[in-house]
Structure formats: structure tokens, C-alpha cells
């Protein structure tokens, strides 16, 4: 449902993404890993056009993301996104954070949107915080609200951009648990993360990136037991053996 073909991206002279070819199928959980600055987040952010690609083709459900004729707002309805720093709206309650887009974009009534919001808050385990403001929540709770906010639009795919990197170590588990549950339900997910345990347990496929290229794609067992690329081997040895 997501297809990169020969995608390149430049920031000025800097070549961030180099000839990316990647297909993500419906229901698949793809985890993108790699060292900092390898282009993982940029790759993810191209999918919903938070970043524009310089050349090549990128389609979501057959619709070209970069095409001028594509209504980007319509496309984005189907693509939920969770950020490293949550980006909850600080002036709105948890419930209002979740109901905003369903009401304004999908035209749901307040009652309908709140019902949906409560359903997903319950799912991420913090229904009791519906009336709180984001600043009253812990980082882990905020990230779970952000996930519920994404789900409330009933997207076909969820993008996660280092969702646990800004969290206290104690709170990482609660967010990963929500993501695991989501993966088990068959949600299509693209996850940029450094959580190797999560990748190993949940991913259908690991995509390893370095210096703007996809160096290796493999199922987790193969990737972790026997990475083909020297660079991937080095990366794994550095992050796993400490």
C-alpha cells in the first residue's frame, strides 16, 4: 500500500535519501532502524508529505503523494502519525486533542467523536485522563494519547517516528505494549525506532538504513542472527553489546 520507487531527496546539496525502493504491504509491520542521520525519519515523513521528495515515485494506496493534483488533506486522513515529542495540543484536554480532527476533517458530531475518542482512550489504557490537559500527564501517558489521537481517524496505516526516544526508561514499556497490541490487530505500521526488542518481536520486516540508503531488508530472525551487510553487523554489535 506504500511504494517508494527510486526516491531521492536533497536538503540543498545534502543527499538525504538515495534511490529508495521500498514496498510496504497492507497489514505489515515494518521497522526502520539505522544510525542517527541515516534518513529514517525523513523516509517516514515523506509518506505523509511532511517532507517532499526531490525525485522518484511515492504512492500510498496507488495515489501519488507528490502529485500537485493529489488532495494532501484527504490522503493524510488515512495516515496516522505519532511523533517523538508527542506534539499534543497543550491548550486542549485529552478528549479535545482526540476529537479535533474527526470533527473538523471527517465532520463527525461531537457526540460521535467523543464516543470514538473514549473507545481509543480505553484501548490505550488511560480513559480516566480524558478531562486532563497534556501537561498533567507523564510522557508515557502523553504518547499513548497521541496514539489514540492517530487511531481516532481510523487510518489505514500508522507511522511512528521514534515514539519512545523521548521517554523515561520506565515509561517505554507501556507505549510499546500499546503498539504491540495494535500490530497484533493487523494495523499497517511503519516504525522508526531504536527499540530492538520491539523490532524483533513485532516486526514482519526490518529495514536497515545508512547514509540515506536502504542497505538491508530482512525478517527479524535473519536480520538479528545473520545480517548480510557489514554496516548492519557493526551497528548491531554496537547497540546490542553494552
Amino acid at each position, binding site marked *: 500500500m506504500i511504494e517508494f520507487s527510486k526516491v531521492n531527496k536533497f536538503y540543498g546539496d545534502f543527499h538525504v535519501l538515495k534511490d529508495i525502493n521500498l514496498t510496504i504491504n497492507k497489514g505489515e509491520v515494518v521497522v526502520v532502524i539505522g544510525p542517527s542521520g541515516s534518513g529514517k525519519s525523513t523516509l517516514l515523513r515523506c509518506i*505523509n508529505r*511532511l517532507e517532499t521528495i526531490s525525485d522518484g515515485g511515492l504512492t500510498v494506496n496507488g495515489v501519488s503523494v507528490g502529485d500537485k493534483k493529489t488532495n494532501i*488533506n*484527504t490522503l*493524510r*486522513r488515512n*495516515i*496516522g*502519525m505519532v*511523533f517523538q*515529542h508527542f*506534539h*499534543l*495540543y*497543550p*491548550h486542549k484536554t485529552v478528549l479535545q486533542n482526540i476529537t*479535533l*480532527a474527526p470533527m*473538523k*476533517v*471527517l465532520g463527525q458530531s461531537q457526540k460521535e467523536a467523543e464516543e470514538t475518542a473514549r473507545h481509543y482512550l480505553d484501548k490505550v489504557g488511560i480513559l480516566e485522563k480524558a478531562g486532563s490537559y497534556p*501537561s498533567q500527564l507523564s510522557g508515557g501517558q502523553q504518547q499513548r494519547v*497521541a496514539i489514540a*489521537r*492517530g487511531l481516532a*481517524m481510523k487510518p489505514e496505516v500508522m507511522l511512528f517516528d521514534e515514539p519512545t526516544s523521548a521517554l523515561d526508561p520506565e515509561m517505554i514499556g507501556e507505549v510499546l505494549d500499546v503498539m504491540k497490541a495494535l500490530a497484533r490487530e493487523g494495523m499497517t505500521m511503519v516504525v522508526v525506532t531504536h527499540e530492538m526488542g520491539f523490532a524483533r518481536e513485532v516486526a514482519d520486516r526490518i529495514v536497515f538504513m545508512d547514509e540515506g540508503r536502504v542497505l538491508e531488508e530482512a525478517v527479524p530472525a535473519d536480520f538479528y542472527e545473520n545480517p548480510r551487510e557489514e554496516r548492519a553487523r557493526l551497528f548491531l554489535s554496537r547497540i546490542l553489546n553494552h
Partner: protein
Amino acid sequence: MDFSVLTNNMDAFLEGFKTTIIASLIALVCSFILGTLIAVMRIAPLKALNWIGTVYVEFIRNIPVLVIVFFTYLAFTFSGMTAGTIGLTVYTASFIAEAIRAGIMSVPKGQMEAARSSGLSYGQAMRFVILPQAIKIVIPPLGNQFINLVKNSSLLGIVAGGDLMYQGDLVNAKTFAYVDTYVFVALFYLVLTIPLSFGVGYLEKRLARSN
């Protein structure tokens, strides 16, 4: 201090006071709306709009308000009150636009990204996510602009706008008690500006608490 200057001419002072309040209120509301629009134009992802917004701010902000008021009065066939209020609005809007723009820029970039990635249009994201946050940051500089606006409304007097300053001049012509008259005029302005100043302070505290 000759209080008879005040008591004998109370009608004139009150008439001017009323006009000053009305002109200030109209200019306040209109310059706030116009200023917000221009601020959004300056940062919208559309070059042509950026250009219009920037030209507006750089031109208007750098012309003395007195010249603008004279221009609106002389170039069109408006009454002094109308010309003065329009001039004030146009002038104040450029400062309000800059204050609001600074406020919008200070909202973290991730807020716009989160809003847009959920499918909200740029306008919706501005209206529901960015502006409500920017306004809190903008309240103190905005308050200063509103206080300036009330004081600048005294320029209506120069184009026969019927405001406090204008009425004060008429009282002068009649009584020759210049100093006393201007002291009373100043007091009337303070009646407006001091509560405004406190109001802004109060609002600032309340908004800070809601965060």
C-alpha cells in the same frame, strides 16, 4: 487648578470622551482582525501572500500615524471621526500583525505538523491549534498596542474628529485655561488606559494559569 473649567464644560468633555471610546473600540476590533489576517498572510505557505503582508507592514509601520490620518481624511471625503478611526486601524494593524506573527512563530513547529498530519487544512490548523496558543504569548505586546491606540486616537482632534482632544481644544478657545484643560484631558485618557493596562495584566495571569 480651576475646577470650574471642568464643571462648566462637562458636556463637551463627556462628548469627547464618548467619541474617543467609540473610535478606540472600533479601531481596536478592526485592527485586531486586520492585523491577524496580515500576520497569517506573512507566514502562509504562499509567496504572493507573504509579499503582500510584508509590504503592508513595512510601509505602514514606517509612516507617522499623523500622516496616515491626514491622508485618510484628505484623500477621501470621510468625516474626521471616520477618517481618524480608519487611519488608526490601518496604522495599529501593522504593529498588531508583527506581534501576532512573533507569537505564531513561537509556537513549536511540531504543533503544525501534528495538526496537518491529522488531515486538517492549513487554515484549520491555524484556527484551532496555532492561533489559540499564539494568543497567550501575544497578549502582553498586544495590550501595549491597544494602550498606544487609545493614546493615538488623540490625533482625531487634528482632523476635527470630535474626540477628547478636539473638545479640549474647543474648551481652550473658550476659556483660555490651557493648562487646566489639558490636565483634565489627560485625566480622561488615564480613566481609559489605566484599567486597560490592569485588564491586560489580569488576562495575562489568567491565561498563564490555564497552561
